[in-house]
C-alpha cells in the first residue's frame, strides 16, 4: 500500500464522520487532489481484492470505510455484550435519597443534594428504577417518587426493609427531620457517619 493510501485508511478509520477528498488532501502537504483520488482508488481496490471485511464507500460527498453489507447479519447476531452501563454519581446519589426517603418529592431531593434533579429523575424513571407513587399535599401538589420492584431485583432485596441500616440512614437523609426533632436524631446522624 502506498503511504498516502495508508494515511487515508487510518484517517477514515478514526474520523468521526465521512471525509471529503479535499479534507483528505490536508493529510499530506505534498499531495494533490489527483493524488488523493488515486490513493482512494488503490485503497478501494485493495480492500475489495483482498476480500476484507470492510469496504471503501463514497457517500454524501465524502468517503468512509464501512463493514460489508453481507456481513451485517452475522455481526448483528453475535453477542457482543455491551459493557454493562453503570449509573453516574449523580444518579446514584439521587437513587440513594429516594430509596431511603420515599415517597419523596423533587424539591426535597434538590434540597438535600444542593443541585437540580430534573434530568436525573427522568433518566432513573426511564431505566425503570423509580416511579411516581403519588402527589404531595404540599403547595403545588408536587409528584412524589419511590423505587420500583426492579430496583429491589437489581439489588437482590426482598423489600425495602432489607436495605442496610435503614433506620439510621432514613433519619440522616431527612433534611427537615433535624429541624423538627431533638438531640436523638443528631445522635443517630453521628452514628451513621462513624
Amino acid at each position, binding site marked *: 500500500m502506498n503511504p498516502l493510501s495508508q494515511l487515508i485508511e*487510518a484517517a*477514515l*478509520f*478514526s*474520523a*468521526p*464522520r*465521512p471525509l471529503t477528498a479535499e479534507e483528505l488532501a490536508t493529510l499530506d502537504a505534498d499531495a494533490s487532489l489527483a493524488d488523493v483520488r488515486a490513493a482512494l482508488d488503490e485503497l478501494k481496490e485493495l480492500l475489495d481484492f483482498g476480500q476484507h471485511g470492510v469496504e471503501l464507500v463514497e457517500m454524501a460527498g465524502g468517503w*468512509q470505510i*464501512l*463493514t460489508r453489507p453481507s456481513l*451485517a447479519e452475522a*455481526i*448483528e447476531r453475535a453477542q*457482543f*455484550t*455491551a*459493557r*454493562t*452501563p*453503570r*449509573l453516574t*454519581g449523580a444518579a*446514584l*446519589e439521587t*437513587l*440513594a*435519597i429516594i*430509596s*431511603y426517603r420515599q415517597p419523596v418529592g423533587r424539591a426535597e431531593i434538590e434540597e*438535600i*443534594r*444542593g443541585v437540580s434533579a430534573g434530568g436525573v429523575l427522568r433518566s432513573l424513571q426511564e*431505566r425503570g*428504577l423509580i416511579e411516581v407513587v403519588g402527589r404531595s399535599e404540599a403547595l403545588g401538589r408536587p409528584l412524589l417518587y419511590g423505587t420500583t420492584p426492579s430496583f429491589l431485583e*437489581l*439489588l437482590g432485596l426482598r423489600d425495602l426493609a432489607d*436495605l*442496610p*441500616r435503614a433506620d439510621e*440512614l432514613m433519619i*440522616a*437523609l431527612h*433534611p427537615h427531620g*433535624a*429541624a*423538627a426533632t*431533638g*438531640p436523638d436524631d*443528631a445522635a443517630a*446522624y453521628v452514628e*451513621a*457517619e462513624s
Partner: protein
Amino acid sequence: MTTDAPTIALGATPGFVVQLDRFNGPLDLLLHLLREQQIEISDIPIAQIADQFLGVIHELGLNQAADYLDMASRLVRLKAQMLLPRRSEEEGWEDPRAELVRRLLEYQQIKEIALWLQRQADRRALQFARAFLPAPPELPPPPLELDIVELLAAVERVISGIPSPVLHRVVARPLNVEGATMRIETLLQESAEISFREALGPNPTIVDVLSTLLALLELARRGLLRVAQDAPFAAMVIRRESPLAAD
C-alpha cells in the same frame, strides 16, 4: 501568586523556581527540595529542609494547603527531636527521620510507577480507535449493574454533602400545624362558625398563632372551611364548608 521576592533560604539557591501546581503534594515538594540540592533521602538535614519547606509554602501563600501545613508541622517537630542531645553509641536509639525516609521512598516508588503509566498512556494515545460508527445494530439493552455497596457509598456522599448546621439545628418550639388543624376541625364540628380568637385556643403564644394561621390556610385550600373578614381590621370569622366530593 505573590510577587514578593523569595524569602528565607530560597534566595540562597540560584535559579530556584517553585510553582504550586508543579507539585502533587507535600511529599512531592520535599523530594523536589532534596533533588535540587542533591541530598540523599536517607540522610536529610532536617533543620535546613524544614526551613526551606516552610519558606516555600509561605512564599506560595498556600491557603488551601492543609496537607502542606501538616507536613510542615511534622518537619518542625522532627527538627526539635534532632536537636535533643544524645550519645551516638546509645543503644536502641531510632533515628526520628526513619518514618519520613520510609514515606519518601515509598512515594518515590509511586512516582516512578506514575511515570511509567504516563509513558504507556502517551504511547497508547498515538493510536486512534474507530470513531465513525455506522448505525449500530440494534442491541438489546444490557443489564444494568448496581449493588448495595455502590448505593451505600452514594448515601455516604449525600450525607457528607448535607451542610452540618441543618443537621444540628434544634428548634425548641416547633410549629404544630397538625395540632392546630385538629383543634380547628374539632371546633368546627361543634359549631359552624368560630372566631379566630377561638381557633387560637387559650393563652396563645406566637408559635400557636403561626401554627393556627398555617392550619387555616391549608384547610381553606382543601375547601374544608372559609375565612372571611367583614370589614378591614374586623375580626376574622371562620365558617365550616362541606368537603368537596372530589377531594
